[in-house]
């Protein structure tokens, strides 16, 4: 069989008869300790997340109540003259934002056909985590959390609880590692708007993915 033949050749080059049964012993795994041992307070994590994302052209709104969240959302939708909004089919998220969406044309993932999401002006999602070090959102997609909701529209807006913001990328990866059997088939780490420097090194935003990344961070929730 091809597989066996292929792997046997590798084993032979490594000087052994076949693929070892036990996992190889390792001297080091993952990041150096000085990196994993850093500890930031929630305040510091939120600030770092915001600074990093803003620095990359993202937009971050810090709010500290559900009312403030809704005000911020409605301001964003108004100022961008949004008409059609796509959203994850996620009860918690929907309860937070639905009152604001009443006056918009809303498509919910899994309720409206996927093809509807090609024409959305803005996609609203939650996020599993934020990463302070890089200003990254971690979107674990599956079921009601459709991939197209944040990928296709020109604007992506995510609602994130401050307590979900981790210091480093590794903490989010560790979560994946500890739930290997339930891992979604698509986990997307998104840091700022889509971009390219392919034309004469000149930067352009919104090449294929969203041109705007907006995150509303809710503290005390």
């Amino acid at each position, binding site marked *: 069989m091809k597989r066996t033949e292929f792997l046997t050749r590798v084993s032979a080059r490594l000087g052994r008869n076949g693929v070892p049964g036990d996992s190889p012993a390792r001297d080091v795994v993952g990041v*150096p300790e000085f990196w994993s041992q850093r500890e930031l307070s929630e305040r510091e994590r939120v600030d770092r997340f915001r600074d990093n994302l803003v620095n990359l052209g993202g937009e971050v709104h810090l709010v500290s109540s559900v009312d403030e969240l809704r005000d911020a959302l409605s301001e964003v939708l108004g100022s961008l003259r949004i008409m059609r909004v796509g959203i994850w089919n996620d009860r918690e998220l929907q309860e937070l934002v639905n009152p604001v969406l009443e006056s918009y044309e809303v498509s919910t993932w899994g309720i409206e056909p996927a093809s509807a999401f090609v024409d959305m002006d803005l996609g609203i999602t939650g996020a599993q985590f934020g990463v302070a070090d890089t200003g990254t959102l971690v979107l674990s997609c599956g079921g009601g959390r459709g991939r197209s909701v944040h*990928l296709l529209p020109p604007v992506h807006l995510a609602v994130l609880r401050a307590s979900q913001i981790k210091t480093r*990328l590794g903490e989010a990866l560790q979560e994946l590692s500890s739930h290997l059997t339930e891992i979604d088939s698509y986990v997307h780490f998104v840091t700022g708007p889509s*971009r*390219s420097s392919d034309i004469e090194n000149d*930067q352009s935003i919104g090449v294929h993915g969203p041109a705007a990344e907006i995150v509303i961070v809710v503290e005390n929730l």
Partner: protein
Amino acid sequence: MTTEIDGKQTGVLDRSRLALQDDFLRAAVRFTADRLRGKKRIATESLGNWETWRERGMQIRSHTVANLDYYLAQFTENVEAAGGHVHFADDAAEAAQTVMNILMEKQARSVVKSKSMVSEEIGINHLLEEHGIEVVETDLGEYIVQLARETPSHIIIPAIHKNRRQIKDLFTEAGGENLTTDTKTLTAFARNTMRNKFLRADVGITGCNFGIAESGSVVLFTNEGNADMVTNLPKTHIVLMGMERLLPAFADLEVMANLLPRAATGQSITTYMSVITGNRRRGDIDGAQEMHLIVLDNGRSRQIGDAKMQSVLNCIRCGACLNVCPVYRQIGGHAYGSVYPGPIGAVLSPVLNEGEKYADLPYASSLCGACSEACPVKIPLHDLLVHLRQRHVEHGHTKTMERLAFRGFKVAFSRPNRLNLAIKMARLGQKALVRNGHIESTLGPLKGWTAGRDAPTVAKQSFHDRWRTLQSELQTQHNHALEPKAERGGDVE
């Protein structure tokens, strides 16, 4: 590699001479390399402890390659457990045929691709076109290169050799109306054109930056978002992966996520890092229904167990060695005539393809060592280049080769500017021609150059020191435009 130019067979020397005639190319290559390099410096300095990170990166990659049979078995089993199909290919032709078989089975008429060096390696576009299947490169730079019917000139920024006027002409030819040379307009044309292609395509093809053995996940680092469309919109997703591109665990991905974007484009992370595990799950509405992973050997396994060459498999394809290479900076990517250019290409191409085809590439280097220092996983590239030259010598085709290389490069780099001088100096460094930071004016015919070549007598460190001094001189002279602001570069895969 020899290619046809004006009907004549040419080698790397001829091609580099031709490349030198193209002033735009030279300027563009240098500008891009400087920009990426400057950004890398800022990004690594702000991270801190870069040497510790490199060391860690090297350890993880070396461990993975030293246990590649185990991790490959684990990875591919997990891909299958997640619903994916796994194919193994011994060489480029077999990988290409495997792709073709899948496309035939799916009766695919159109394919969208995101940037993948392995796909260049197996020359898949050509084959698909022959079969009347539309294949579209969706990375902006790759799309430009494809429309121009050329190959990438840099592994991170493929179209650095094209200026905006040429790009506008190419886009106009491809159906763009009333285009200007403005970046926004050109990008918008690409975005709109691609949108339709993504939605219509039967199959998406991507590469793979890393495979995570513990989960069977394929990880892609990109900036534009095209890879996510390619992965998720068509019904079938084909992943092309070099057999060595694995990491044992997600914990190790954190190290690579810190190293790769910084080394490639000076980003602390790319805009997108996509972790794809098998095909869509029950209850998912989007995402590929079928995922095929093709694992490619194509000369890689031959390097395992070769004490000298095994480390070449540690490469994470960041392109940092290109950006610092004085030879690459002069001649650009195409002169190498191979899929992988620059120092990594000069090592990889001849070892992946044995024989005479790329045998001259190890000579397309000044052996200055800047590449080894730039490499985020500490591959001793210039040692490997020396080793390949020695191997070449042992195989008997030597002196002529060496002399040819010397003569050719002397012509190729004879332009009277500092950078050329730098190359000569770097090459001559072992002869201790530099005194007190000055270059001896009597370089003369560089007598005896060949004799001392492969057995450096001067301590490595002092040479590196000289090289650094020279580099900083050059930096001042060329007044490098470094942009401290956060900015993004090309796609990493």
